[in-house]
């Protein structure tokens, strides 16, 4: 027989009239489909002492916090009990749906994302012993108790379960995430010794992580000195990219490691020397094409503590791109940091990698810049399975620890492999929408994928390519 934990559903009735509270409790009670469940009306805006008293009196195994405006999906409580009976976890949440039936799918546990966005949804639960061990409900979290608790528990390594089923139906077609209280995030980060400044967003917040120290960053750029028509005028891609970086980047402790093919025109080299000055380290590439080998060669000459792996056909949008990536890369357990890339026509080229159905692609590919998903994923720093090496930052020692780019992937999937190697070390790959660039890669480019590359990728990482934990579909 399976163990079914006792659930206490705390129905957040903040700001509701007594008759509304009664009706919400009655409605949810009718939707209850499981035994060992009790409903308690709580005021989510109450003083913490009030909630802590309730917690002290509770004999339940789990407190499930549900917004009074939401409804329970059919079978939700049975599903929850079955899942909690199987796994030894401390926190759970699941998908929700809108009244029109559109499902809001939620990512797997994402601690960096949680600092910017309450993605847990209207039904989230906490093991009562975990809440007690964490010190109960915190002061100054009125209106955001479950969010604040989830933040605190994520810091102590609480085991989190995302139930991949619709657990609730949101009361109205509201955003998929709950508006975040800036103060809660700021106090949480202060409490764990992370310097920060918080900027408000649309329901979410932007956490700025000031750079610790002034580490040298090496931008490693492979090139052949190609030209193209950009913004309607001829452009030597690498020269214009470097000029933009040198002139507009607000972070100044960087060097440029340019790995140039033998065939690179001399006037391009001359121009690079002129534009980049002392920052330039020129590295010759005389061998056959292999993107991975070329990038690895560049990193040998990099003196920086951090590397930015960068294509030569990019243009800055955010002058603070380096410090934005660096602030994230300096966070605990962060591996690669990727950026928001646009095509020349302003549509999205890269919103992070997506690994699904034994394939690797880009999140949000071709979306209009103003587009977003139901949960607001395009406006927050978030965990991803991988990022493109067209623009990515990584600590130099991490790059060496995983063996750099694999030579088995001369043209394609080298960044997928690198991302998965980094993830296999226990580090998280992060994508940020706050470092933005244009990537002049053709929107209609059909990558010439060699079957051998795909085969190798699947042999190494087959199970990691089946379904993406951070971009559920």
């Amino acid at each position, binding site marked *: 027989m399976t163990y079914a934990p006792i659930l206490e559903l705390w129905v957040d009735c903040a700001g509701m009239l007594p008759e509304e509270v009664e009706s919400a409790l009655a409605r949810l009670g009718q939707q209850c489909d499981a035994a060992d469940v009790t409903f308690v009306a709580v005021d989510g805006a109450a003083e913490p002492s009030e909630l802590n008293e309730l917690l002290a009196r509770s004999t339940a195994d789990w407190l499930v916090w549900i917004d009074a405006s939401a409804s329970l999906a059919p079978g939700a409580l049975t599903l929850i009990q079955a*899942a909690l009976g*199987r*796994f030894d*976890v401390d926190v759970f949440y699941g998908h929700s749906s809108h009244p029109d039936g559109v499902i809001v799918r939620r990512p*797997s*546990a994402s601690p960096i994302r949680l600092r910017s966005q309450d993605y847990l949804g209207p039904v989230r639960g906490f093991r009562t012993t975990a809440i007690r061990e964490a010190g109960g409900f915190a002061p100054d979290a009125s209106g955001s108790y479950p969010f604040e608790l989830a933040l605190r528990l994520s810091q102590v390594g609480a*085991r*989190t*379960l*995302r*139930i*991949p*089923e619709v657990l609730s139906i949101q009361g109205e077609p509201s955003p998929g995430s709950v508006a975040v209280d800036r103060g809660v995030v700021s106090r949480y980060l202060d409490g764990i010794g992370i310097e920060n400044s918080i900027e408000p967003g649309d329901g979410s917040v932007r956490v700025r992580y000031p750079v610790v120290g002034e580490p040298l960053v090496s931008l490693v750029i492979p090139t052949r000195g190609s030209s193209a028509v950009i913004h309607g005028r001829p452009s030597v891609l690498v020269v214009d990219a470097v000029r933009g970086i040198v002139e507009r980047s607000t972070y100044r402790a960087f060097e440029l490691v340019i790995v140039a093919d033998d065939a690179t025109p001399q006037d391009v080299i001359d121009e690079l020397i002129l534009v980049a000055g002392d920052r330039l380290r020129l590295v010759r590439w005389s061998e056959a094409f292999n993107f991975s*080998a070329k990038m*690895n*060669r560049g990193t*040998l000459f990099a003196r920086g503590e951090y590397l930015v792996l960068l294509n030569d056909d990019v243009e800055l949008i955010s002058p603070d791109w380096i410090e934005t990536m660096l602030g994230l890369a300096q966070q605990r357990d962060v591996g690669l940091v990727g950026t928001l890339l646009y095509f020349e026509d302003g549509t999205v080229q890269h919103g992070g990698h997506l690994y699904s159905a034994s394939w690797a692609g880009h999140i949000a590919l071709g979306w209009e810049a103003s587009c977003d998903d139901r949960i607001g994923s395009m406006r927050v720093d978030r965990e991803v399975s991988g990022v493109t090496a067209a623009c990515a930052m990584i600590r130099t020692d991490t790059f*060496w*620890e*995983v*063996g*750099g*780019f*694999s*030579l*088995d992937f001369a043209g394609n999937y080298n960044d997928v*492999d690198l991302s*998965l*190697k980094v993830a*296999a070390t226990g580090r998280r790959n992060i994508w940020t929408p706050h470092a933005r660039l244009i990537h002049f890669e053709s929107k209609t480019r059909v990558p010439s994928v060699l079957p051998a590359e795909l085969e190798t990728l699947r*042999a*190494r*990482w*087959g*199970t990691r390519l*089946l*379904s993406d*934990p951070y971009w*559920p579909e």
Partner: protein
Amino acid sequence: MTDSRDGAWTGPEAELDARQRMLALEHQLELVDRVTSLEAQLAQLTAGASLTPSEQLSAEQQLLALRESLPWRVGRIVTLPVRVVGRVFRRGTRK
């Protein structure tokens, strides 16, 4: 037999040239990558046992969706005679 000296020896030391050093470092990267990729391939064999609870639930959900899909059900019907014959044959050989 010579006695060991207190100080370090002096003499013209052999040195790797820059190209040799570069190739050695590239070789080092390549070796680490090789080991990492072998570890990854090995991990594939035990992937089922190392799933997190969230991954396990997702995998089960996908399996369920696969079994409820039309191609799967059509495939089961199409292969039914073969499976019946196979079962009968196995039962016969067991006796």
